[in-house]
């Protein structure tokens, strides 16, 4: 029996490091590739590159064309929904002067979008200011986490709009109430993701901190913050998405200036083509917000990884 065991026990059960090759830095020379491509006719890579561009550009444009085509066909016979051509004309007229002001309830679409973005920015900023530190605290303390988590679980599924009346009651004004709704809906993803990030900081890193006896400041700046950053950015991205969803609804209820109010106002004026334009504008702004955050996240994590 014991002779059998010799073989079975000895090898390490530790995962073998993939990068086994040691020491000598592998210099990746690109020369062979160049030599191979040089003798070939210069036209082939160009065609290939064109093909690559086509592969990237073609499917989305095709999708868009089909969407507009279906829309066109569906509205061909007339009816209450305007077709693409009508909407295009209305859009040209609308965007010719996006920043006009005829009193508080009649302003250009540019002002409306900016007003919404401002609310989102302020509400979101406060949420980050409160949510990220709170997430850190919850992630670090099991007791506080056990204390606060049930409350978060209870409140998180509540539609942010349910908080709007409370906001109106407290602030007595529509504008801060809308901002406060944004705050409420943005804060949950930020707390949750930051806390999760802190909890998932590898124990190895924390052991390093303990062996080096780093100060709490160094632990936060050199270990916790960089380790949690990707989680935090995910939280931020999720909350800005929800915030942009919620602001439209909140503004419909509160009125004033803002893209949501504008949609409602145009509904009251029965300018359906403007509502369709608003849908596109909301979509595009949301897309830009999300994409710029993804870009930011990629840049930051590349620097820190």
């Amino acid at each position, binding site marked *: 029996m014991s002779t*059998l065991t010799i073989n079975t026990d000895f090898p390490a059960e*530790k995962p*073998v490091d993939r990068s086994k090759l*040691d020491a000598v830095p592998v210099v990746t020379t690109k020369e062979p590739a160049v030599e191979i491509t040089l003798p070939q006719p210069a036209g082939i890579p160009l065609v290939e590159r064109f093909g690559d561009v086509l592969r990237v550009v073609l499917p989305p444009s095709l999708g868009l064309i089909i969407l507009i085509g279906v829309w066109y066909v569906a509205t061909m016979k007339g009816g209450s929904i305007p077709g693409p051509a009508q909407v295009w004309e209305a859009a040209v007229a609308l965007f010719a002067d996006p920043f006009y002001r005829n009193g508080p309830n009649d302003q250009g679409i540019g002002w409306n979008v900016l007003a919404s973005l401002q609310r989102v920015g302020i509400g979101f900023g406060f949420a980050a200011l409160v949510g990220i530190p709170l997430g850190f605290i919850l992630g670090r303390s099991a007791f506080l986490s056990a204390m606060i988590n049930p409350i978060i679980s209870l409140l998180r599924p509540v539609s942010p709009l349910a908080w709007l009346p409370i906001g109106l009651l407290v602030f007595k004004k529509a504008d801060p109430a809308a901002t406060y709704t944004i705050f409420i809906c943005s804060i949950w993803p930020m707390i949750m993701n930051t806390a999760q990030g802190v909890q998932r900081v590898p124990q*190895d890193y924390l052991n390093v901190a303990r062996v080096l*006896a*780093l100060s709490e400041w160094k632990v936060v700046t050199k270990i916790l913050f960089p380790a949690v950053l990707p989680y935090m950015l995910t939280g931020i991205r999720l909350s800005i998405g929800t915030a942009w969803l919620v602001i439209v609804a909140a503004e419909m209820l509160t009125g004033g200036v803002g893209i949501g109010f504008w949609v409602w106002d145009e509904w009251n004026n029965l300018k359906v083509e403007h509502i369709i334009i608003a849908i596109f504008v909301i979509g595009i702004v949301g897309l830009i917000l999300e994409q710029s955050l993804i870009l930011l996240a990629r840049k930051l994590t590349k620097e820190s990884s």
Partner: protein
Amino acid sequence: MEKFVQVEQVGQTFDTKKGKFIALRDIDMSIKQGEFIALIGHSGCGKSTLLNLIAGLTKPTTGVLLCDGREIGGPGPERAVVFQNHSLLPWLTCFENVYLAVERVFGVKEGKAKLKERTAAAINLVGLDHASAKYPHEISGGMKQRVGIARALSMEPKVLLMDEPFGALDALTRARLQDELMKICETTQATTVMVTHDVDEAVLLSDRIVMMTNGPAATIGEVLEVNLPRPRHRLTLAHDPAYVEYRAAVLEFLYEKQAHIEKMAA
């Protein structure tokens, strides 16, 4: 100093869902200054637990640990640890990883230039000058482990603790790093405790091999003095009858006296 690190009647019990788990019991040992100790045993025998106790990362349930006459109350830079999986911070370059340790230990009394000099010297010691500005993900596993060793050595610790530092490396790289470690220990005269499950590694590097019985409730089974002259060379040692004998002694302990765990598992 005869008793630089002292482990006295140390036991370690963990609370688990199935009740109390006795990991270690009745551990007594003392380590001389400048000595190289290998802790060897089957997996799960608590050798890493013992190392963590010396590091101060965990506290013993019973008994007491002393380093340089003082009780070990927690982890600290005087007992540097080289972790099994290198544990470099991925967002810092190799240089910055080592600098973090240097700054912590010497930052109070030394200027920036001197700290950088120390960092560069530690990286030079493990032969990684060329990779100093690289990030951990840009270098190989063996190089990462060397940075981990540089980080530990840069703190000029009283005791160097290594938890299977070469366990995840291939045999060739492991051999090279063992040779390097021997040289480094000779120059720095570091007191070292290394956890390993590699018999050759233990015999080649150690002054004494502490062999542990199987867990649960593991303790020290035998202690083997390795009286091979230094500097040691693996090729000459391979045919040295004394080396072969030491090796056989460890193997015998592991696979005959402590083989029952396999029978139970099988």
